[in-house]
Every structure is written in structure tokens, then in C-alpha cells.
């Protein structure tokens, strides 16, 4: 009983170490290709549209409603102390430093990260990646790098949209539902929100973009096991990306702010 438990534990540890090692090597190889080969501009722009423009609606909605909920919730607390003018700064700081980047990262992971894995995974199982190699085409340069660059560039833009929508959503609730004056909401934001809060959030979202694209391409690139394998890889891609984004968020917050 004990031996089999230790055996299973060892096997699990080995699997994790192998996966982490392979993922690290994949990332390093991608970086090497990024700096040693020509970037496909048109493919990168197409990916920016695929990852970014097509994610605009969900980022707009999640950002807006998160800001609205924040305003409602913070009103409950601040109203007791007569400190309603802090609702604006709370919403703005939360959206710029945390919720904007993190929610954008998670939502884009769910929409575009899964699509990246499914697309590359399908190409793997239908031998399209092998076909690229036999044609002398660097599959990293063709498939991985454009998605990485596009994701790193577009996530900060989406994150900015989320921040603006969140603050605007909070404004709408504060003024039209909670009956605060527009000055009460905005004056605090002008006083307490600093430019570094916004840039810090944008840096974070660039890192989240790198994570979701790297995990998405990695899981897709090593997909096996037919259609079922593509499904498993896609699920794993979303789960792993989300977890890494949340963990990375802690360290980035500690480092950046």
C-alpha cells in the first residue's frame, strides 16, 4: 500500500518535472526563434485581429459590469462613513492595477487561448505541422511566434479597454443609480490615480498575453490522441494558463507596485 503510494507520488513528480522542463525548453526555443528569424508581419497582424479584435466584446462587457459591481459594493461600505467620494478612486485603482489586466487575461485565455490550442492541435494531429517541416518551413516561426507577439501586443490594448469600461461603468452606477454627483466620482480619481498605476497594469497584461499564447501554442504543438486529444489539450491550456496568470499576478504586483 505504502510502496504503491510512493510509486504513484514519484510518477506524478516525474510527470510534473518533465512537463515543466518541456514547457521551459519550448519557451526558450520560441525566444531563440523570435530573435533569430524574420517576423511574419502579416501573420502577426492577422493574429492580433483574431486574438484582440474578436475579444473586444467580452472584454467590454466584463470590464463594464465589473466596474459597475465595484461601485455598488464599495458604496455599501463607504456610505456608512460618509466617504462616497472614495468610490471613484477605489474603482479606478482596482480596475487599473488588478481587475482590468487579470480579467482581460482570463477572458482572452478562455476565448483565444483555447482557440490557439485547438487550431494548432488540429494541425498537429492532421499532420499539417509535419507538412510544414517537410516543406522546409520553420513551424515555430510560422505558428508560434506570430501568436506570441500578437498576444503580447494586443493584451495591453484590451486591458486598457477593460480599465476604461470599468471606470465608466462605475461612473454610470455612481451617478445614475447611487445619485452621486459626477464631481464626487471623478475628483477622487484625479487625486489618487497615478500614471504608474495604469502602466503597471499594462505591463502585467503584456506578461499575461505572453503566458496565454505560450501555454496555448505549447499544448497545441504537442497534442496527440486524435479529436479527444485536442479536447483534452484545449481544456488543459485554459486551466494551466489561468492558474499561471493568477500566480504571476501576485509576483508582478509585488514587483511592480
Amino acid at each position, binding site marked *: 500500500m505504502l510502496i504503491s503510494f510512493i510509486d504513484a507520488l514519484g510518477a506524478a513528480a516525474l510527470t510534473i518535472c518533465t512537463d515543466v522542463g518541456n514547457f521551459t525548453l519550448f519557451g526558450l526555443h520560441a525566444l531563440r526563434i523570435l530573435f533569430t528569424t524574420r517576423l511574419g508581419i502579416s501573420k502577426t497582424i492577422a493574429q492580433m485581429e483574431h486574438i484582440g479584435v474578436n475579444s473586444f466584446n467580452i472584454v467590454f462587457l466584463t470590464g463594464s459590469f465589473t466596474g459597475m459591481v465595484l461601485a455598488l459594493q464599495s458604496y455599501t461600505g463607504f456610505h456608512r462613513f460618509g466617504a462616497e467620494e472614495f468610490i471613484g478612486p477605489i474603482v479606478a485603482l482596482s480596475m487599473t492595477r488588478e481587475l482590468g489586466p487579470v480579467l482581460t487575461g482570463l477572458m482572452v485565455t478562455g476565448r483565444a487561448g483555447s482557440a490557439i490550442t485547438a487550431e494548432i492541435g*488540429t*494541425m498537429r494531429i*492532421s*499532420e*499539417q505541422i*509535419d*507538412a*510544414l*517541416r*517537410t*516543406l*522546409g*518551413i*520553420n513551424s515555430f516561426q*510560422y505558428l508560434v511566434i506570430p501568436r506570441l507577439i500578437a498576444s503580447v501586443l494586443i493584451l495591453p490594448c484590451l486591458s486598457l479597454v477593460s480599465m476604461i469600461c470599468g471606470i465608466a461603468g462605475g461612473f454610470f452606477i455612481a451617478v445614475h443609480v447611487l445619485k452621486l454627483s459626477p464631481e464626487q466620482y471623478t475628483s477622487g480619481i484625479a487625486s489618487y490615480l497615478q500614471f504608474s498605476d495604469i502602466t503597471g497594469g499594462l505591463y502585467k497584461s503584456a506578461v499575461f498575453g505572453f503566458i496565454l499564447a505560450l501555454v496555448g501554442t505549447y499544448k497545441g504543438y504537442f497534442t496527440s490522441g486524435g479529436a479527444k486529444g485536442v479536447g483534452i489539450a484545449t481544456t488543459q491550456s485554459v486551466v494551466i494558463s489561468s492558474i499561471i496568470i493568477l500566480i504571476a499576478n501576485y509576483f508582478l504586483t509585488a514587483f511592480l507596485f
Partner: protein
Amino acid sequence: MIELIDVRKKLDSRWVTDGLNLTIPVGKLTCIVGRSGEGKSVLLKEIIGLIRPDSGSIIVDGVDINKLSDHRMLYHFKHFGYVFQFAALLDSLNVFENVAIAQIEAGIPAKKLLDKVRQKLSLVNLGHETLHKFPSQLSGGMRKRVGLARTLMNENLKAILYDEPTTGLDPITSRVIHELIAQVHKEFNITSVIISHDIEIFKYVDYVALLHEGKIKFFGEAKTIWESDNPYIYQFIRGLPLGPIQHEIAYEETKV
């Protein structure tokens, strides 16, 4: 010349190639036959370098490709054509982009490639109306012909490898594909290797090799194959249940 020396490869705890030796004649059409799950596709992928053997040497023009780095391997690929079993066309690209993908990626403007792509499509009996169609709009036979046209875009080919080119096709389309392969071989005089278990292909090839249990059990000229007394090929081409090739193979069909 392509020479495989003592090539061994283990997949899923079984030896797919087990000390395999084979010399593929230059400028000839060689067919590798064998039962399903014997590892014919693995062997073909070892020859081109998509799968690296665990041990042994694969010598192409005096170079052991098993020892090449991934980067050098890309240059090796530039002298080989590989026609995949299900064509492996890129779903997101139309026929023109699929056929010209290697040249487009090399930086040649698409406009300059149009005539060449049309010429290659004509060679594989496809009309210009297919240029803007996507793989999902093509039949299985058409996809394979587009795959062949994509391979023929390479002007520096030393060898073409065909992985079961007639799988899933009706007898008439299979014959058309066989004749097309023979026509391409005749026109370009390129060393060609075909994986198949369709014995109709023997009419078109120069040599036949039989793969069984990870080794080449027979290698000989196609025109004399029906007179061969090699027990393996004798049983295989006649489809006899009794003989050295056991009916119950110890492993399930695996496709890599």
C-alpha cells in the same frame, strides 16, 4: 542514394523498426508494402527525418541524417518531397496558398508564383478553377493531387516519398493517382518511395520491399514478383492466411 543501416525504433514498447536494412535505388520507383500496423509510415518518416530512430543510420547522399541538428534538418527537407496519406493541406489556406506555401514563406511574391502554380496543378490534372478553393471544398483525390502539386513546386527534389497515396479512394481514383505517380516519376526521373498495401501499384513500380516485424523480409524487382518463391512476399501478394506472416499479429494497429 538512400541507405538505411540497422535502424531501430521503439514506439509504445514495441520495435517498429528492428535492425532494418534497406537500400533504395537511385532514380527508381520503390514500393514498400506490409500489413497494416507494421510501421510502414514510421519507416517513411524515418527516411525523411520526421521521426528519428533510436539507433542506426539513415544515409542520404553520404550524410547520416540521424545526426543532423533540427536546423540542418530543415535544409535536408528542401531536397525531399513528402506526400501525406491525407494530403495534410493547411485548412486555413486556399489551393494556391497551399501549393505555393514554401515559396511564399521564402519571400517570393505571390503574383510571381501564379503561373508556376497553374502549371503544377495542370500536371496533376487539376483545373485553374480549383485555385481559390479551400481543402474542405475538395474531394479526397483532389486533395492528394494538390499535395503532390505542392511537392512538385520544389525544383531541387532528389526524392519523393508517398505515404499510402490511395488510402480511402475508390478503385478508379486510385488508378488515376497511381498513373499520376508513374507519370511524375517518368517526367522528373526522381527517386521515389511509395508506401502501400494496394498490390495494383506493382504495375507501376520498379522495386518492391516487404516490411514485416520491423525488418525488410523481401526486396526485389516488381516485374518478377509473381514468380518469387520468397515465402513472405508469396503469402502477402496472394493474401494467403497461412504462411510466415502470422494472421494474429501481437499488437494492435498503430498509426504514428
